[in-house]
């Protein structure tokens, strides 16, 4: 965007919202919104505490493990569904159900099945992320150019070659899109898991700060979480743009 002939850098609008936050905070309208400057000072303090670093580590661990399984299981499942009619008929209804289901309601069941530890949290995270990854990988394979498949076949590609050298690449733009949305959902999943299953990680911090009305701390941790999720999502969006040159012409 341009303002008075100057080119504004991306996300300049955040400055306006930040100022608004500061003003509302300084006016002291509600204890719920402390001034942004105060939040930032608190953020700086909080980051150095061992409680925060432990929470960050626990959350990152559950998040990364959950996303890892969602990708490792989701992409091949989606690609196989796109290729095999039988598998597609068997699994597609379930994928669609789970994609739109309120997964939070399933968390108590997961607790019964997998206990109250890290394992249940990781599984919750995976469940939040995996369905859209499956669905997008499937869509990516479905739109593959028939003649690319014939080409690989006519030059004698083995099924493994076809999978890794044709299907995976041809579906990559959709797969990356799915992974990006999946990761955003995984952030939700890991926090919900930490709040509902066992109070650890960032979930525990949120619980602690809001119960004690430490709003500065609460917002500080929330900002960290948003920033992390946003960074990962932007990184994947960057990867998507890297393959965009062929997404339009396959």
């Amino acid at each position, binding site marked *: 965007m341009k303002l008075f002939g100057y080119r504004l850098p991306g996300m300049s609008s955040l400055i306006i919202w930040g100022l608004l936050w500061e003003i509302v905070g300084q006016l002291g309208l509600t204890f719920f919104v402390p001034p942004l400057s105060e939040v930032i000072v608190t953020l700086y303090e909080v980051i150095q505490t061992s409680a925060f670093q432990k929470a960050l580590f626990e959350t990152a661990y559950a998040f990364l493990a959950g996303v890892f399984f969602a990708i490792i299981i989701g992409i091949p499942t989606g690609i196989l569904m796109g290729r095999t009619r039988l598998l597609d008929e068997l699994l597609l209804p379930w994928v669609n159900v789970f994609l739109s289901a309120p997964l939070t309601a399933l968390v108590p069941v997961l607790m019964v099945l997998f206990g109250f530890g890290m394992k249940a949290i990781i599984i919750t995270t995976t469940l939040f992320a995996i369905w859209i990854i499956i669905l997008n990988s499937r869509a990516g394979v479905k739109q593959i*150019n028939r*003649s*690319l498949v*014939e*080409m*690989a*076949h*006519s*030059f*004698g*590609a*083995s099924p493994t*070659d076809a999978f890794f*050298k*044709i299907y995976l*690449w041809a579906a*990559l733009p959709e797969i990356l899109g799915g992974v990006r949305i999946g990761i955003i959902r995984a952030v939700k999943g890991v926090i919900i898991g930490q709040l509902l299953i066992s109070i650890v990680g960032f979930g525990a911090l949120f619980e602690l700060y809001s119960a004690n009305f430490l709003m500065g701390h609460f917002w500080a941790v929330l900002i960290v979480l948003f920033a992390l999720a946003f960074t990962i999502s932007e990184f994947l969006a960057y990867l998507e743009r890297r*393959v965009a*040159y*062929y997404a339009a*012409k*396959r």
Partner: protein
Amino acid sequence: MAMSQTKMAVAEADGVLESAVSTRNISKNYGEVEALRDLSLEFPRGQLTSLLGPSGCGKTTLLKIIAGLLEPTSGEVEVNGSKVTGPGPDRAFVFQDFALLPWASVIRNVSFGLEMRGVAKSEREAIAERYIREVGLAGFEHAYPHELSGGMRQRVGLARALSVDSQVLLMDEPFSAVDEQTRRKFQEDLLGLVQNENKTFIFVTHSIEEAVYVSDQIAILLPRPSRVSEIIRPSGFRNKGVDNIRRDPEYLDIVDEIWASLRTYVE
């Protein structure tokens, strides 16, 4: 019956020629629809045979059966005396829509066939470079397909098919997606290839002029169900140079003759 007719036609025109590819009594049904019926055809070694016919006459189907990409409902294909059961290294395919990997550079696309055959990277890239030069794309080794024009993309497809050094080259309307001027250049280059490469070319086209210009033998297919109606072997103008073909009386006569027999089948 149809086969003996074919053989007679070939024998009459040119003495007995050795076949690199023969199709015997090929039928192909898609459910109720009969795409090909009892089609037999011989493809002489080292020559270019065109499959020509109105759209929907099953010429691409026949080509894909020869390639091993489709299975015939009945009948069989023989390449160099052995029966075709699927794609094989003795045949290479050039696709109408080029079928290039859009995420791979020209050199990787050209060496893809060799890669599938397990040729080591340095070796296959050396071979690919040679064929990229041969089709006139030197300097574009590291370009990507979307950076190339349609004609250049098909040159990549052609280099890929040549680099695996198959004896039989199957071309499915290879020039139909490129512009007219590029197509003329391609046709001239193709004549050079047929002369120098000592391969058997099977060429599907819907252009009568193109078929007459490039072919040693033209098989006219008629639709529903497809069968070979006629085999024409232009002979008089092949050695008169690429510039003189289009005004050679025999060339013009054959074009007219083919149009006369096809016009009733064109809606």
